[in-house]
């Protein structure tokens, strides 16, 4: 795997892990049951993608998926500010979902064309699952596209896609504390 592929895989893995965590925050409290199920399922898929991507990168770098996912300090994550934000509003959640899935489709197409068969194979696998996320995001886009609150959320969040991956929001540090709490505390009898 070349360095650029490894860097790209790590960015996607970090995005999917953090977004999966954020999406799972709707479990139990989404506006209606269908969306509770949808966002829980999407979150599960995203975290599954993150794990597979971390495993591939970890093997190259002589580390493990868990170490990559949880043992780096938050400032070393390569995720986008778009996935870091904690949203309590549905229109922001859907705006992020739509922006993210649309952008994610483009980079997956590039990875599917990678000369490394493992990278291309994993990207193709992920893309099959993401097709259902995109379908869901577009369904919601069509429902809300004429709502002012939704279009305002799209305008507010769109710049985050290009905001870079070196600077992070305080919300990422908060999420990291929460996400790694059990792992860092090492309760008696646990082994990682």
């Amino acid at each position: 795997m070349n360095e650029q592929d490894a860097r790209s895989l790590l960015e996607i893995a970090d995005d999917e892990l953090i977004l999966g965590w954020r999406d799972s925050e709707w479990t139990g409290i989404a506006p209606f049951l269908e969306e509770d199920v949808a966002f829980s399922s999407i979150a599960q898929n995203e975290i599954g993608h993150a794990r597979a991507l971390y495993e591939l990168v970890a093997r190259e770098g002589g580390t493990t998926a868990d170490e990559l996912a949880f043992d780096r300090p938050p400032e070393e994550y390569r995720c986008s500010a778009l996935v870091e934000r904690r949203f309590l509003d549905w229109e922001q959640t859907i705006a992020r979902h739509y922006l993210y899935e649309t952008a994610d489709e483009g980079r997956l197409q590039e990875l599917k064309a990678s000369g490394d068969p493992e990278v291309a194979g994993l990207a193709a696998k992920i893309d099959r699952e993401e097709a259902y996320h995109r379908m869901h995001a577009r369904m919601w886009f069509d429902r809300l596209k004429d709502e002012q609150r939704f279009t305002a959320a799209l305008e507010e969040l769109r710049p985050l896609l290009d905001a870079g991956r070196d600077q992070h929001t305080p919300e990422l540090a908060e999420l990291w504390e929460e996400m790694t709490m059990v792992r860092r505390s090492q309760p008696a009898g646990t082994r990682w």
Partner: protein
Amino acid sequence: MVTAQQVWAALAEIPDPEIPVISLVDLGVIRDVGVENGTVRVDFTPTFLGCPALEVMSDAMAERIRALGAEPEINVRADDSWSTDRITPAGREKLRSSGFAPPTPRDATAPTLVQLQSNVFRCPYCGSTDTRLENIFGPTPCRSLRYCTSCRQPFEQFKTI
């Protein structure tokens, strides 16, 4: 000395952890079995990458292989080689008779919402195609929810992957 045929037969007895009416062999997740010097290698392709049943499946395969007196080696292949098209005809029939509508064949292009909203999906209970999409997502990543207007029965549809 254990043979590949014995291994396949043993793996065919392992139920899918979430839909126990079908076996791992019916599900098509086992790509290959190789036997060499007392080690049994199984090439295993995940259904959905985030499926929590994958670990249970790997552990169950390893356990069956040890019971045959061999050392298991489970290779997970995280590529695009598993598709719902790999579910065997017998597996599809078992799904249908348990109230799960089997997946439609994989197309060259990704499935679309328009396709899912069309009425080509058959109710596993009454056979009617007068069914509608309730939710793209369901109780596990591999399933969607539909409702049969004809017999007024909600049912789970396998997503095409």
